[in-house]
């Protein structure tokens, strides 16, 4: 019996590594191709640039990954970001102390997530349709609140923070790194993470086992809302303005990153590390194509092809999945 145990352990470990290895391989391949095609690509400033450009999508995608693992989807991230951006910015402009305004902005994201989660967990509605409704609803609120005009004049101290860096690494990258580690800890080291996987894997069995299914779903959407707010704050810090139209199409990028990273949209499976790699793949792709001065239509073509090829490589290296 002990023999079996000893024999069995390595395949599992290697399977986990293998899974993310597929994604990493995809990234390396893309980087290698661009490195050959354009010399600027593989320079430190450009690589930092890629990380910086990926950080907002990564922030959203982290929350999205947790939602997807718990068996849901959140299409409303962009508008949630917009709503908390404009309200947060309005507060800052009105003189509310920056830390307070930041907390308030995040609270708004959490509240939107709560509404989504409540309709899904208590209302029993389908996540896709609830957050599709949210997509219109939160956007409308942001537009109505601002009358459609951006809010300018954010405090310099706030902008200095999001535009600053530590030892050459841009602050947004550091923030996302901290969030990613936290998300990883939540997913892999806390009961809540187990609950996400259980609820996404088999909600009925989770319920029978005493998992607080409703709270788990609520948490996922609330975390996603909070992440959207953080992404919004990073962005408005960089832009110096909060626009009600900010965040368009963010949901698709985030879902793509999570899926490239191995999350199953059927729920129950996904990896924080994989999602990060997924974000970097998308960021590197866009960066490389721009450096090569590929025309927009062909960029679109390349994006489509590379997403599919990345998935095929991933699939070929990581074996069967649902």
């Amino acid at each position: 019996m002990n023999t079996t145990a000893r024999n069995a352990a390595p395949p599992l470990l290697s399977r986990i590594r293998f899974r993310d290895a597929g994604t990493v391989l995809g990234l390396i391949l893309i980087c290698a191709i661009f490195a050959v095609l354009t010399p600027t690509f593989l320079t430190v400033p450009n690589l930092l640039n890629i990380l910086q450009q990926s950080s907002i999508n990564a922030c959203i995608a982290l929350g999205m990954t947790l939602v997807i693992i718990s068996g849901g989807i959140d299409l409303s991230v962009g508008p949630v970001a917009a709503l908390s951006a404009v309200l947060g910015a309005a507060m800052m402009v009105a003189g509310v102390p920056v830390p307070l305004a930041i907390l308030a902005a995040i609270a708004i994201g959490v509240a939107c997530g709560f509404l989504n989660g409540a309709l899904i967990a208590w209302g029993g509605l389908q996540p896709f349709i609830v957050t599709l409704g949210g997509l219109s609803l939160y956007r409308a609120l942001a537009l109505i609140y601002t009358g459609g005009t951006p809010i300018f004049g954010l405090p310099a101290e706030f902008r200095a923070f999001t535009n600053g860096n530590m030892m050459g690494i841009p602050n947004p990258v550091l923030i996302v790194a901290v969030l990613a580690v936290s998300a990883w800890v939540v997913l892999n080291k806390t009961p809540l993470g187990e609950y996400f996987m259980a609820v996404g894997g088999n909600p009925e069995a989770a319920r029978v086992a005493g998992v607080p299914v409703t709270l788990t779903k609520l948490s996922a959407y609330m975390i996603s809302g909070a992440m959207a707010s953080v992404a919004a704050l990073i962005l408005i810090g960089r832009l110096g303005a909060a626009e009600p139209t900010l965040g368009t199409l963010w949901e698709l990028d985030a879902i793509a990153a999570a899926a490239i990273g191995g999350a199953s949209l059927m729920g129950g499976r996904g990896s924080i590390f994989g999602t990060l790699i997924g974000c970097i793949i998308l960021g590197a792709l866009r960066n490389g194509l721009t450096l090569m001065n590929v025309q927009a239509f062909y960029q679109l073509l390349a994006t489509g092809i590379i997403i599919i090829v990345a998935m095929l490589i991933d699939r070929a290296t990581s074996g069967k999945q649902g």
Partner: protein
Amino acid sequence: QELPPLNSDSEPDRMDWSELEAKFGAFAAPAAGTKVGGVSKTLTNEYWRSLGEGYASFAAAHGVEVVYQAAQSEGDQLGQLSIAENLISQGFNALLFSPQTDANLVPALESATAAGIPVVNVNDAVIPQVAHYVGNVQKDNGVRVANWFIENRPEGGKVAIIEGQAGVFAAGQRTAGFTETINASGKFEVVASVPADWSRELAFNTASTILQQHPDLIGFYANNDGMALGVVEAVKAAGKAEQVAVFGTDGVSDAYAAIRAGDLTGTVDSFPVLTGEVAMEVALRLLAGQDLPRVVATPQALITKDNVETYATTDLKALRAALLAK
């Protein structure tokens, strides 16, 4: 130095494109190896492609290299920012931005300014901190159409507006210009002002619905030509082509064709190719150290069947002449 936020429609420090040569002298050829980068809103709309043609034709004529890139779709704000940042890191001498929104290219503007690269904001959304803006007055667009109605339909009547995407600067300004002017005349009633998100299909559906409700409608103003052409089809399908005047904005080639065919009553052409040339010229003059006003206004004209042939020319010299003659 901190510039006051720019409003391209009302900025006092402005000049008309036609005065460039008179006030700042003939254009001098730039240094060899000058590279200018253009960041477009999208290439899926003819307007922005034509703008790029203007950049390219002027640059080619003066030995300047141009790169013209666009986001993958309209609304891809971060994608456009990435493009702009990547261009800066590649060492272009001057940049021409047509931002998706007022704010989304701000970081790129800041790093370009820090690196001493002149940036010209070309049309549509306006970056408030930008030092130079080339483009037309968006509000004037709607005003011209409204004036047409006031002159040609003196008895007044019901009109409707098909708006672009909610929250987009150009859409808001054009709509406001039209609404304010036509309301001021007192004879017209704007019975509907609804968004169709720049989509021909939605414009078609929306116009059908409006015609259903207001069979006595006399005119539509659409925020761009694609939507206007959708409206034209709806008007034809309702059999009201005689009664309803339809106006668009932009002056794309299909709009010209439709005006010639008598389907579209008119469009406000803002001459994108010419605008592109002017923008490129402004950028190169800035590179040469000239101190231009903050806003250089580019031309626009209401095109109707009466003057369509005058402006339909692809010969830019002739077009310049026609516009200057006016």
